[in-house]
């Protein structure tokens, strides 16, 4: 454990500098936790229980409204289609729209030169402000940088006409050289994607002459000095990850119109309503107050909708035609022109002593950000700052990344946000080192991983992102124990057939919960006279069950049934401000805002209860839909309080509560992953028998929903291990245009996934919660690579793991 009195051994600059001391003060070990936060599960009425998901009845009956379902409510609705670049790199010299414009039912065609097309530079990344992504895009482009870059847009009376019209638009290009491979793109003589004056809001470390949009680096201690020491072995390995698709089943969809009050309204499938509003205001030069972004049900996001991907086009078309316009991306566009996970090469290096002490840890990532830089720097930062702190006891650590452009579609935020790439490299690498040293891989990890009380300096080495933090909850030991038991670690039976070998691999992971010091959530609660409540939250439910978790948190504080709370979330005209659904922050940040709002309202409820019961407020509590006295048992229904407050004769009040929350904390959730695989040493064919993932998410607000998040994330992680992702032909054209070609594991191709929730208590979170939905996205690729290594002795380092690669490695081995 590292404290002020106990500096890291051999720590170099890791021993405490002035800045570290400040960090210790910012992150005291003692945490002043509100009393009501820390009840045992059985003392709680709502939190920690599998309450029914609030929107489920709507969802299972087909009554829920996603963006496209609003279509029938807008007579005169026009449909958008987009003309996209056919070449990977070049300049549009002419767009002939005449044939399209002549068609019946076509309302307008916009090109880069149309008056209604915004010409401001922007980034699509839906992030905080000032934006940590470069402004390098236009809504419609003259300079095109990938096959799929938008050039023109059509609005027509129906979707078929819009598509047919788009096909009739002829584009002429002046073609330029292009580059698809990130290593080639980074070389001195590669074709250059951006001229010096083509980017605003440039990001640290950019060098467009080499297509680099950013370079970042952080270090504690001295890695170079450590690897040169005589008493260490240096190990090095390189890992490669796929371009994974978000593949949310609802494609990006936006409906835009201007209402009777001249307000520009977007009904849109987004994770970031408030950021989207701000970005649209910038692009269209409309005041923020005149834009309304409203999020209906969302059919999945996973980071793909933490970006303003399609919204500007229907808004521009709607302004041009004076009609409501809907734009639904096609599935083909999803693969070729929306967003994906950054494919990366990550090199891991360690310096380890004979007896297995890791003295230095060094990761380097080369990230392919595609044609534009959205989320490029921040995702790359997380390759280091999420997984590496797991081993916070290592005294010397460094992370460096180069983020380069290629003429491929744009990447973006995706569940895990860089951590999957880093976790593969780190956990695969450490497994191999342990084997080399003949140390049990679990013990090897245990000797270095974090514990409660540690001041995690590695998380802070990159600066702002995931700044230094105190570890106040950590269930790694229990995750490992329970995971081992569930996978059958100690009694693995080998198959009878001689060529079949079974092995179990494991990997650990840590994530963050929210971005420390950089997020805000807010909530408002109004009491009705019948004792029910309206809860307004800026936090965004994109299918995760966030609305239900918010209701449970409020119900716990108010002591009322969940069904007495009506929730409205994410409509910028109605609900308070929130940064949006990303960075595993929803339950932690927005949930804490809900808790504060409910506590604020509760104060007023107790005031009115005290008037009615005629006992001091300090005697009173809420529970079972009542305010009751802990002294005398006297009670009054919330309904009576509601009526009295609204209609009382000497005094009246609308009971309102408000809460806003931001924090310097970002506690890591943890996961231990186990994968059981049987490999045929003759063919390389393998079968994953089972996946087990144990997750420490603090207190699970709703264990049923939390398990669902864990399993879904683990499936996504499994896909990253066995699916090729989005590939391209030599001309830079996406080889994947449909789900069939994406070839991801379906229900019968997915092994059983067992999720285990390991309960700890995070004192900085609402009722002890930290995050759950990202950390299990990180772990299957390394666990499966480790399992194959265990089963047949070969190491697969580039994803996906395929029978061909295993067979080739086995042949090499012979």
């Amino acid at each position, binding site marked *: 454990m590292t404290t002020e009195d106990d500096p890291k051994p051999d720590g170099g600059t890791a021993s405490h500098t002035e800045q570290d001391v400040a960090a210790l003060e910012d992150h005291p070990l003692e945490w002043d936790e509100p009393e009501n936060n820390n009840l045992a599960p059985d003392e709680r009425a709502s939190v920690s229980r599998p309450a029914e998901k609030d929107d489920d009845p709507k*969802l*299972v009956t*087909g009554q829920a409204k996603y963006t496209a379902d609003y279509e029938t409510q807008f007579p005169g609705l026009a449909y958008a289609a987009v003309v996209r670049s056919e070449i990977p790199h070049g300049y549009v010299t002419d767009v002939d729209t005449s044939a399209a414009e002549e068609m019946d039912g076509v309302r307008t065609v916009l090109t880069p030169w149309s008056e209604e097309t915004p010409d401001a530079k922007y980034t699509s990344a839906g992030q905080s402000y000032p934006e940590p992504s470069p402004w390098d895009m236009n809504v419609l482009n003259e300079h095109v940088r990938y096959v799929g870059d938008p050039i023109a847009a059509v609005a027509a009376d129906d979707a078929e006409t819009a598509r047919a019209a788009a096909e009739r638009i002829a584009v002429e290009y002046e073609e330029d050289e292009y580059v698809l491979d990130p290593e080639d793109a980074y070389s001195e003589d590669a074709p250059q994607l951006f001229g010096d004056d083509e980017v605003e809001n440039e990001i640290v470390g950019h060098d467009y002459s080499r297509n680099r949009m950013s370079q970042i680096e952080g270090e504690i201690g001295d890695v170079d000095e450590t690897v040169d020491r005589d008493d260490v072995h240096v190990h090095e390995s390189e890992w490669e990850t796929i371009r994974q698709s978000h*593949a*949310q089943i609802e494609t990006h969809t936006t409906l835009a119109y201007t209402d009777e009050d001249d307000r520009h309204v977007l009904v849109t499938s987004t994770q970031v309503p408030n950021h989207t509003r701000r970005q649209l205001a910038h692009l269209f030069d409309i005041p923020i107050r005149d834009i309304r972004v409203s999020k209906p*049900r969302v059919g*999945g996001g996973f980071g793909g909708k933490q970006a303003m991907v399609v919204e500007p086009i229907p808004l521009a078309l709607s302004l041009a035609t004076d009609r409501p316009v809907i734009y639904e991306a096609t*599935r083909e566009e999803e693969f070729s022109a929306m967003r994906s996970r950054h494919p990366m090469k990550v090199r891991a290096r360690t310096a380890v002593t004979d007896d297995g002490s890791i003295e230095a840890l060094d990761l380097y990532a080369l990230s392919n950000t595609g044609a534009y830089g959205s989320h490029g720097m921040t995702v790359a930062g997380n390759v280091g700052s999420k997984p590496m702190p797991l081993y916070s006891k290592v005294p010397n650590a460094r992370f460096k990344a180069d983020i380069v452009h290629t003429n491929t579609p744009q990447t973006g935020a995706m569940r895990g946000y860089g951590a999957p790439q880093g976790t593969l490299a780190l956990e695969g690498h450490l497994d191999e080192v342990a084997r080399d040293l003949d140390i049990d891989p679990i013990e090897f990890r245990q000797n270095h991983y974090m514990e409660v009380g540690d001041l995690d300096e590695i998380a802070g080495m990159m600066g702002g992102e995931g700044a230094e933090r105190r570890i106040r909850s950590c269930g790694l030991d229990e995750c490992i124990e329970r995971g081992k038991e569930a996978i059958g670690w100690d009694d693995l039976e080998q198959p009878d057939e001689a060529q079949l070998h079974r092995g179990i691999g494991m990997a650990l992971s840590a994530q963050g919960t929210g971005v420390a010091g950089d997020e805000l959530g807010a909530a408002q609660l109004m009491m009705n006279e019948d004792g029910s409540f309206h809860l307004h939250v800026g936090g965004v439910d994109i299918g995760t069950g966030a609305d239900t978790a918010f209701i449970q948190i409020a119900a716990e504080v108010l002591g009322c049934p969940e069904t007495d709370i009506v929730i409205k979330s994410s409509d910028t005209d109605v609900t308070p401000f929130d940064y949006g659904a990303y960075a595993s922050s929803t339950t932690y940040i927005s949930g804490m805002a809900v808790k504060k709002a409910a506590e604020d309202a509760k104060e007023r409820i107790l005031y009115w209860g005290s008037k009615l019961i005629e006992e001091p407020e300090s005697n009173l509590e809420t529970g079972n839909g009542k305010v009751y006295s802990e002294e005398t048992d006297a009670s009054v229904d919330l309904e009576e309080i509601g009526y009295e407050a609204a209609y009382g004769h000497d005094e009246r009040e609308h009971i309102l509560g408000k809460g806003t929350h931001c924090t310097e904390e970002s506690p890591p959730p943890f996961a231990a992953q186990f994968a059981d695989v049987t490999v045929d040493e003759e063919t390389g064919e393998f079968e994953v028998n089972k996946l087990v993932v144990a997750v420490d998410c603090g207190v699970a607000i709703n264990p049923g929903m939390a398990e669902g998040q864990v399993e879904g994330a683990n499936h996504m992680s499994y896909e990253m291990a066995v699916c090729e992702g989005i590939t391209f032909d030599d001309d830079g054209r996406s080889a994947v245009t449909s789900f069939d070609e994406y070839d991801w594991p379906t229900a019968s191709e*997915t092994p059983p996934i067992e999720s285990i929730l390991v309960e700890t208590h995070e004192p900085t979170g609402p009722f002890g919660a930290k995050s759950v939905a990202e950390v299990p996205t990180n772990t299957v690729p390394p666990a499966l690579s480790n399992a194959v290594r265990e089963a047949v002795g070969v190491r697969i380092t580039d994803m996906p793991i395929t029978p061909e690669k295993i067979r080739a490695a086995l042949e090499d081995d012979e």
Partner: protein
Amino acid sequence: MQFSLTVNGESLEIEAAPDDDLASVLRREGYTGVKCGCDGGVCGASKVLIEGSAEMACGKAVREADGATIRTIEGFGSQDDLHPIQQAFVDHFAVQCGFCIPGMIVQTKELLEETPNPTEGEVREAIDDNLCRCTGYQKPVEAILDAAERVHGDGAVATDGGAPSESTAHEATDRPGETRDT
């Protein structure tokens, strides 16, 4: 052109172009529980029962369905009175964003008509073209196995909802009943 369809027990005369796909036609008529998640024929979100068999409505021209009896998700339970299959999905937390769920429920209905007591393997195969991005399929599979019991079991509708517990051990087994604790 005029087409007649019987949708959820109601006879409809619908004006549509013969090539219009059934999913769009149904959605236009207000059956927006029919979802579209792909460019057609792959994701399974648009499944409806046509003469009792689960088909992707997007892959079918409306003329091919002329005169047919169709059941969409709207023809199952209502919000206050869910069909046992719907209730099983709710109780097992098998619904996340919900976009794939109407198609999944329609497919389950067909499966349980044909195979009242499916094995886990049969369930997984039955939903192989119902793509879900959110759940990892684990909870939908558990929900469907439970739904089989609720629909065809000894009349005993499970009421404990299969509340999640650590005992949801998911052994790869083809024997029914072994993967759940209801």
